């Protein structure tokens, strides 16, 4: 198992399989996203309380899920990089951070745009909203730390520690709606009993969530691959790659 993991994590191997995976994830995301968007806008009912404003949910909820999912990925990759010193784990974590920051931003903005008509306010300092804002700051801190430290391995290690400490915020975000009284509604999908959301609404929600997850995988892998090429520029396999590409014709 570990030997297998190590092989997959070797730069050359990683470059190979991640390219294929990124391509599949990209096409999958496009397909599921198109279907999800169709159901979200044309083939799902308005909410009996919130009317058509409920369609914001199909952007807001996947963005919020992804903001936490990406963070967990960064934390997991950071752990791997700290324990096994795997270079590609570093690069994957670093590539994930800006995507996570963007989707956290999207969750906050769409939440605000949903809160105004439903709650009558753009923002309140309650537990769910505040902890999600802290998540954005964690992302920005992580990105800042990476670029602030000159020496690459030190930067990666410091950022990894920050990422792991910040994990404490994730359960706080998730359970905030139960632990504190809040304007934000409780979970409707991830409850242990039957989800309390109609299938016609759940369908676009799941499609959009899956599409965004695949989108993240595609973007993160491509960013990590570009960084990998940059760092490994002098290695034999990258030289062979360049020659292969130039043979392909633009010279």
């Amino acid at each position: 198992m570990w030997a297998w993991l190590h092989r997959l994590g070797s730069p050359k191997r990683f470059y190979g399989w991640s390219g294929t995976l990124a391509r599949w994830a990209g096409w999958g995301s496009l397909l599921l996203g198109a279907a999800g968007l169709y159901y979200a806008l044309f083939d799902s009912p308005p909410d009996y309380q919130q009317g058509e404003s409920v369609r914001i949910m199909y952007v807001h909820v996947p963005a919020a899920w992804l903001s936490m999912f990406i963070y967990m990925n960064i934390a997991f990759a950071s752990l791997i990089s700290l324990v096994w010193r795997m270079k590609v784990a570093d690069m994957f974590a670093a590539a994930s951070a800006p995507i996570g920051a963007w989707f956290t931003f999207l969750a906050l903005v769409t939440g605000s745009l949903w809160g105004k008509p439903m709650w009558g306010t753009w923002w309140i300092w309650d537990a769910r909203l505040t902890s999600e804002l802290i998540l954005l700051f964690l992302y920005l801190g992580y990105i800042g730390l990476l670029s602030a430290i000159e020496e690459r391995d030190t930067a990666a290690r410091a950022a990894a520690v920050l990422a792991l400490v910040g994990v404490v915020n994730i359960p706080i975000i998730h359970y905030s709606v139960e632990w504190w009284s809040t304007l934000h509604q409780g979970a409707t999908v991830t409850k242990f009993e039957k989800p309390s959301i109609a299938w016609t609404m759940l369908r676009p929600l799941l499609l959009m969530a899956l599409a965004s997850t695949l989108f993240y995988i595609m973007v993160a892998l491509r960013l990590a691959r570009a960084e990998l090429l940059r760092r490994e520029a002098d290695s034999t396999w990258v030289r062979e790659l360049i020659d292969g590409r130039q043979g392909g014709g633009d010279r």
Partner: protein
Amino acid sequence: MGDFLHMGGYAPYVWVSYLFGLIVVVVNLWQPWRAEREVWRQLKRRRRNEERMNESETP
């Protein structure tokens, strides 16, 4: 069509939300595209310089 765009009176909130979604998607498509283009440009430039060095070294 008018009804659809009207979104039961929530049009600005709904459409601005989707617009922000679109912006985030476009930015995140552009970032890796730019990174890849940049790194390949660097790699090729390096390669060409190396070849030029090799040519000038051999008489």
